[in-house]
C-alpha cells in the first residue's frame, strides 16, 4: 500500500514536470479553462439577478453547491484522466503490457495520465466556494468545516468512480462509452444546484442509482441547518451520507477487477 502511494506520487510528479515544459502554453490553457468555467458561474449570477431565488434557495447557498461540484469534479477529472483515455488502451491492445507488471492494473491506469490543466476549473470552483462561504449565513465551526470536507471528499470519490465505471465498460464494448458523459458532465451540472429543485424521478435517480445527492445535497442541507425537502431525513444520516461516495468508489474498483478478469486482448 505504502509502495503504491509512493509510486503514485512519483508518477504525479513526473506528469506535472512534463506538463510544465511548455509554460506559456500551459498558463494560457489554464486561463482558458478558468474563463470557460467561470462563465458557468456568470450564468448562475445572471439567473439569480433575474429570478432572485430558486425554490427558497438564495445565491450564497447555491454557490456552495457550485463550489463543491466543480472542485470535486476538477480533482477527479484531473487524476482519473487515465481511466478516461482507457478505451484507447484496450483498442490498441496496449493493456496487455500493464498486465505483465507486478502492480495492480487500476493503479497503473490511474497514473498513466494526469491533467494539471484542470487547475483552472479547480481554482474557479474554490473561488466560488470561498465566496459562498463568506456570504452564507453560517457560523463556521469546525463541525461545519468537517461536513464540508466530507462532502468534497465524497463527491470527488463519486466522480472518480464514474470515470472508473466508464472505463470498465470498455472491457466489454472496446469502444469508449460516451453515453456515460451524461452522468459525469451531467452530474456536475445537476449538483451545482440543490437536488430538491428537480422532479421526483430525477431526485431518486441521483440518490439511489448514482448517489451524487448523498455526497452534495444531504451534507449541505445539514450544514445549513435546513430541512431535507426530499426525504426529511434525520441529521445524522445527512452528515454520514458522504460515505456513499467512498462505497461507490470501492464498488467501481471491484467491478474493475471483475472486468480485468474478463479482458480479452485485441492485440496479437
Amino acid at each position, binding site marked *: 500500500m505504502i509502495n503504491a502511494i509512493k509510486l503514485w506520487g512519483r508518477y504525479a510528479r513526473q506528469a506535472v514536470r512534463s506538463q510544465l515544459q511548455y509554460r506559456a502554453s500551459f498558463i494560457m490553457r489554464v486561463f482558458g479553462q478558468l474563463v470557460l468555467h467561470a462563465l458557468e458561474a456568470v450564468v448562475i449570477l*445572471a439567473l439569480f439577478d433575474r429570478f432572485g431565488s430558486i425554490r427558497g434557495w438564495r445565491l450564497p447557498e447555491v454557490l456552495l453547491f457550485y463550489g463543491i461540484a466543480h472542485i470535486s469534479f476538477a480533482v477527479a477529472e484531473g487524476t482519473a484522466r487515465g481511466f478516461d483515455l482507457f478505451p484507447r488502451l484496450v483498442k490498441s491492445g496496449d493493456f496487455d503490457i500493464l498486465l505483465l507488471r507486478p502492480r495492480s492494473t487500476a493503479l497503473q491506469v490511474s497514473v498513466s495520465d494526469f491533467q494539471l490543466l484542470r487547475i483552472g476549473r479547480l481554482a474557479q470552483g474554490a473561488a466560488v466556494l470561498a465566496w459562498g462561504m463568506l456570504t452564507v449565513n453560517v457560523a463556521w465551526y469546525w463541525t461545519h468545516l468537517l461536513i464540508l470536507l466530507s462532502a468534497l471528499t465524497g463527491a470527488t470519490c463519486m466522480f472518480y468512480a464514474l470515470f472508473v465505471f466508464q472505463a470498465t465498460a470498455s472491457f466489454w464494448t472496446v469502444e469508449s462509452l460516451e453515453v456515460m458523459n451524461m452522468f459525469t458532465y*451531467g452530474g456536475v451540472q445537476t449538483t451545482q*444546484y440543490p437536488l430538491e429543485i*428537480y422532479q421526483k424521478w430525477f431526485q431518486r435517480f441521483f440518490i439511489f442509482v448514482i448517489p451524487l445527492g448523498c455526497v452534495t445535497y444531504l451534507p449541505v442541507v445539514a450544514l445549513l441547518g435546513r430541512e431535507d425537502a426530499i426525504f426529511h431525513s434525520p441529521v445524522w444520516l445527512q452528515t454520514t451520507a458522504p460515505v456513499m461516495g467512498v462505497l461507490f468508489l470501492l464498488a467501481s474498483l471491484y467491478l474493475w477487477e471483475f472486468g480485468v478478469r474478463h479482458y480479452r486482448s485485441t492485440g496479437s
Partner: protein
Amino acid sequence: MKPYWAIFKTRCAVMLQYRTAAVAGFCTQLFWGLILVMLYQALYHSSSGPKPMTLPQVISYIWLGQAMLLVLPWSNDRDVMQMIRDGGVGYELIRPVRLYGMWYSRFLATKVVPMTMRSIPIFLIAIPFLGLQPPASSPAAIAFAIAMLFGILLSTSIVVCMNILFFWTVSGEGLSQLLMVFTFLFSGTYIPLPLLPDWSQPIVSFLPFRGLMDIPFRLYLGQLPVRELPRLMQGQCLWIIFFVLAGHLLLRRGLKLVVIQGG
C-alpha cells in the same frame, strides 16, 4: 465551384460513419435538456413578475438549443490542426484549389452532417413529448430555416478562422479557446439571451454569436417578428464577411510561417 462541392460531399460521407457517436450524443443532450428544463421550471415557479420570456418559450428555446447544438463553432476537425502541426499542410498547397475555399467546404460538411443527424431525432421527440412548441407560424418556420442557414455559414467562417489560428501554436490555441468560451455565453447555449441582465442586451445584440442560435430561435418562437428578418440577416452577413476576410488575411500571414522540409 465543382472541386469545393466534391470536397463537401466526400467529407459528408466520412461524417456519416459516426453514427454511434450520434446516438450517444443524442442521449446526452436529451438528459442535458431535461436538467435545464427542470432548472427553469423551478426558477419560474419561485418568482413572479414580468419576465422577458414565458416559461413555455424558454423550454422551447432550450430544446432548440439542444437540437442545434452542433451549429456552434467548435473546431471539431482535428485533421486540419494535425496538418498544420506536422506540415501536412504542404500537400494542401499543391492542390489546384484555393486553400481557404477547400477548408471552408470541408468544415461546412463537418458541421452540417452531424448537426442534421443530431437535430432531427431531437425535434421528433421534443415536439410531441418534451414541450418544444411548433414554429409560431409558417412564415416563422421559413424565417427560422433561413436564419439557421446563415447561422451555419457564420459558424463555419468562425471555425475556419479558429483553425487558421493554429499556425501560431501557442497563442493561437489560447485565442481560439477564448473565442469558443464567448460563443458559449453569447450564442444562447448556456442561457436564453433575453434572460441575461437588461444592461448587457445592447452588447449581446452587437456581438456575432447571437446569429448562431439566438436569432433563429427567436424567429421560430415568434419573439422576433418575421419582418425583422432582412435586418437580422444583414447583421449575420456582415459578420460572415468579417470572419471570411479575417480568415483570408490570417491564412496569408500564417502560410508565410510555413517552412516545408524534404521533397
